[in-house]
């Protein structure tokens, strides 16, 4: 029942004190994650777009520069000059000094015939009239082709420029080193999976893709991000967390290619993911700690509240008990007094009868000696019973303690062993060990030795009675002191008190002994004496384990204590 109470209290504390702030924390955390996530994804997008744009610009510049060089060349030299092989080779060498990107250089006449060539292949004299690039260059001064195989059957692309000279057009064409160009794009790396590549309008790869996809192959993903709005930088995402990709595409100005920057979603959001993971772990660990601490604290508080509650309850029962005892004390003095008066009358009547029988004794002794003897016996018995009653009223009055105390200095160091001595013989008969733990240098107390003796003897008698038939019986007498009191504890490992009997232990006439063996006045007398001496007595006991009487006696005489308390009161 009590455990249930503690549990409920603890749960209530945990919920109120910890779960509510914890919920708030969770909400705050969730909100932060949401905004941080949104911010991060924007960052990721911007980053990809920025990389795409930057590199697009770079490559655009590269292409326009190469085109410009070719334009400069055709503008500077006439067709006849360039048709001379050594002249063309000289120019080619100069171009290669300027940029390793130039792979070969060729001059074509108006019909697309290769009239001069500088480079590693044997392409001189071949006709390019049907080549795609040759058709395209007819309409524009500069043309940059897509990757194609051509005569050499190797993927490459060319930059061609057209020159009108005296009504006749001729063309200069440079092949761009595929590897050189490829490196420009392929070396772009973002994170673990981020890569860049170039596709043309129909999704044919113009550079290698690191994650798979050779030159001039069709990009399988092209349909996913192909857009109608060709002129602008764009951002797409496809698929989910595991297999999805983010794309940023930037169209070139010089050609109809697009630079694509691609990164897997998982990779792009890895920092976000790991930061969420870390904070989640922290949150989890922290909340685990909080819950643990909360649980411990709540348990602690609950136990403390419980013990406080029990203390309160105990105090209350003690108060009730004290009140009850005082009430009973008041009543017992009244009863004792009222009974003592008739007893007095009876006593004198008995004395009267005895006197009268003495008078008539000689006269009737001869006639009815037996009757006389019986009468005498009967009268004596009445006298004994009166004494018995008187003994009981005496006990009652001892409980209420309205009698004079003598005040003598008592040294408990000598007094207690003397008391033990008095019961030692009896204890030894019952195999009871009496242990004395008496603090040395105890100050003397001023009290009534006769009454204290009665206290000790009563308590020892009770202990001996309680130890009857117990295993390894022992009585322990401990005398200690604190600031204002001498504390005497008399404990035994006997049968102990049940909670009900403990409540009534000090009440007069309450006894657990069989009828005729005890009047039930022993402990009540002890109580009365200790109260009368200005001390206090409490009983703690567990049934079957033993009991302990704790007596506190004032160090100073009662008068002093009284005046002191008056001082504090005023």
């Amino acid at each position: 029942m009590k455990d249930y109470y503690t549990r409920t209290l603890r749960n209530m504390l945990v919920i109120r004190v910890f779960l509510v702030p914890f919920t708030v924390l969770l909400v705050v955390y969730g909100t932060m994650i949401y905004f941080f996530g949104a911010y991060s994804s924007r960052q990721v997008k911007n980053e990809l777009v920025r990389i795409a744009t930057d590199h697009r610009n770079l490559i655009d510049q590269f292409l326009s520069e190469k085109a410009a060089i070719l334009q400069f060349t055709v503008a500077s030299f006439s067709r006849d000059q360039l048709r001379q092989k050594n002249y063309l080779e000289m120019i080619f060498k100069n171009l290669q000094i300027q940029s390793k990107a130039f792979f070969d250089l060729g001059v074509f006449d108006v019909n697309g015939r290769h009239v001069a060539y500088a480079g590693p292949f044997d392409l001189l004299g071949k006709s390019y009239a049907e080549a795609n690039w040759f058709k395209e260059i007819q309409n524009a001064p500069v043309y940059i082709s897509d990757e194609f195989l051509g005569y050499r059957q190797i993927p490459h692309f060319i930059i061609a420029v057209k020159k009108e000279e005296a009504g006749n057009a001729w063309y200069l064409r440079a092949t761009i080193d595929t590897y050189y160009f490829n490196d420009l794009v392929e070396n772009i790396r973002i994170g673990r999976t981020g890569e860049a590549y170039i596709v043309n309008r129909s999704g044919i790869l113009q550079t290698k893709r690191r994650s798979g996809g050779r030159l001039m192959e069709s990009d399988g993903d092209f349909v996913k991000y192909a857009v109608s709005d060709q002129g602008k930088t764009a951002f797409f995402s496809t698929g989910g967390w595991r297999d999805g990709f983010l794309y940023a595409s930037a169209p070139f100005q010089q050609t109809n290619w697009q630079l694509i920057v691609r990164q897997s979603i998982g990779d792009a959001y890895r920092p976000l993911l790991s930061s969420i993971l870390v904070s989640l772990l922290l949150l989890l660990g922290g909340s685990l700690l909080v819950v643990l601490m909360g649980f411990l604290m709540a348990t602690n508080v609950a136990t403390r509240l419980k013990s406080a509650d029990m203390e309160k309850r105990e105090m209350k029962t003690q108060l009730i008990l004290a009140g009850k005892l005082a009430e009973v004390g008041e009543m017992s003095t009244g009863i004792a007094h009222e009974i003592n008066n008739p007893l007095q009358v009876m006593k004198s009547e008995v004395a009267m009868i005895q006197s009268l029988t003495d008078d008539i004794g000689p006269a009737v002794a001869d006639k009815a000696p037996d009757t006389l003897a019986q009468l005498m016996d009967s009268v004596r018995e009445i006298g004994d019973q009166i004494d018995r009653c008187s003994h009981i009223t005496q006990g009652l009055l001892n409980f209420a303690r309205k009698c004079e105390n003598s005040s003598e200095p008592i040294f408990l160091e000598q007094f207690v062993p003397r008391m033990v001595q008095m019961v030692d013989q009896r204890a030894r008969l019952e195999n009871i060990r009496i242990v004395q733990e008496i603090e040395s240098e105890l100050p003397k107390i001023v009290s009534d030795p006769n009454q204290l003796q009665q206290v000790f003897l009563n308590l020892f008698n009770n202990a001996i009675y309680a130890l009857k038939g117990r295993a390894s019986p022992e009585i322990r007498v401990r005398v200690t002191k604190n600031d204002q009191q001498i504390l005497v504890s008399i404990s035994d490992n006997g049968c102990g008190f049940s909670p009900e009997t403990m409540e009534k232990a000090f009440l007069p006439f309450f006894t657990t002994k069989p009828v005729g063996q005890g009047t039930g006045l022993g402990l009540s007398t002890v109580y009365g004496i200790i109260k009368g001496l200005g001390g206090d007595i409490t009983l703690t006991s567990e049934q079957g384990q033993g009991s302990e009487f704790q007596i506190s006696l004032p160090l100073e005489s009662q008068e002093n204590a009284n005046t002191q308390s008056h001082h504090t009161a005023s």
Partner: protein
Amino acid sequence: MPLTNVLIVDDEERFLKTTQTLLEKEGYKVFTAADGYKGLEALKDKRVDVVVLDVKMPGLDGVEVLKRIKADHPLVEVIMLTGHATMETAIDGLKLGAFDYLTKPCDIPTLKKKIMAAHDKRSAMLDKIQRAKFDRIISHPMEVFSKEE
């Protein structure tokens, strides 16, 4: 045994009667009074050596009676009889000049012993006074006629 005059003041009529009979058998001269007023009245016109006085009585309280006795008849010895609940008043009585106290119920022999002791004390006191008077008469013989005790 010298004749001792005893006055018993108690509200228990039967106790008065029986104790009176018993003590008279023993050779005491016994007067009784059922309350404090009657007791004080009796003291006025009877020669009493020892008063046995119950502490708790209706009407005039034992301690009050004691005070008056001691005021009017300082040489009369008083034994307080207490039902124990009034122990404190009995002790107050000692301070006010009572000879001793007895707790109820008390034996007749005990009572007799206390009465004798009280009487002895009174006799000793009277002796002393007598002797003092005697001494005075010897030194100032004319004073015999000036006033009675």
